[in-house]
């Protein structure tokens, strides 16, 4: 998870999410926190492969990883937007409306990283761009744009 020190209340919410959502754990996704900047980390596992002969990550796994990173970016940004507010009992995550993934090159059988940028942030909807890479940050293997329904109070 994050580096150094005991996790603050907010960071604890993030690790609770990564550990408490079965599919996030199953896929092997974690979140690395530097300051307020969040990076999704997909730990390589042979079960993520989409074709045994040309060993590459499954495109659906790449899509899942990008979506998860976008969702967490929204939840985290929302949490950090009001540092004075009491942290909620758990991370409130948005619902995915749609996701469009560009596959730029094959995903190699190794760890992958992703970072999301919120393009527009509204009361109801958010539009997010997310990029994924492996060896070099400027050599993306996939990118995606998605729309998300913001968590409403009372959710």
């Amino acid at each position, binding site marked *: 998870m994050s580096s150094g020190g005991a996790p603050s209340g907010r960071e604890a919410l993030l690790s609770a999410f990564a550990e408490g*959502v079965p*599919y996030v754990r199953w896929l092997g996704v974690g979140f690395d926190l530097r300051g307020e900047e969040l990076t999704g980390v997909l730990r390589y596992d042979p079960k993520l492969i989409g*074709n*045994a002969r040309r060993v590459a990550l*499954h495109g659906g796994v790449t899509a*899942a990883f990008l*979506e998860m990173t976008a969702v967490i970016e929204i939840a985290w940004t929302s949490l950090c937007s009001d540092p004075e507010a009491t942290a909620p009992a758990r991370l409130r995550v948005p619902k995915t409306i749609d996701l469009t*993934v*560009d*596959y730029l090159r094959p995903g190699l059988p190794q760890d992958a990283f992703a970072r999301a940028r919120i393009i527009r942030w509204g009361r109801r909807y958010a539009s997010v761009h997310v990029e994924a890479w492996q060896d070099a940050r400027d050599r993306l293997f996939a990118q995606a744009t998605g729309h998300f329904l913001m968590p409403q109070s009372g959710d």
Partner: protein
Amino acid sequence: MRLVLNLLHGNDMCMGSRAAEFARDFLNSIPQCKALGMELVSAGDGVVEARMPYRADLVGDPDTGVIAGGAVSVMMDTCGGAAVLSHAGGVAGTATLDLRIDYMRGATPGQTIRARATCYHMTRHVAFVRALAWDDDERPIATATGSFTVDR
């Protein structure tokens, strides 16, 4: 996802035990599909259908027990690539160029999810696919459209 031929060949695979065996082998050869417990229902003539039984470790929302959208995206991509290979157009291999998924509703907890992809048009270098996912209720869970490379 990238797929190569000889895993999925032509139109003769919808019938008989040979086809059934083949269909099973096809998804079992893809580690991610095997890990998800995906099963091929039918394939041929550019249309491929698969199913995925409910599993607690694939839940994306612990409050409701709804399966994660990411698992559905794997079904969409797999069926899309397989639909391209099963199209009667002499395709040797394919890889996803672009895939858009729209999420209509969460799948009902406990139910098997099904996905069907159709390769509805193919040019020399590009194949166009649309796909649908649903559960016991026939209202769609998700729809997808994608373009795929065509290796000849």
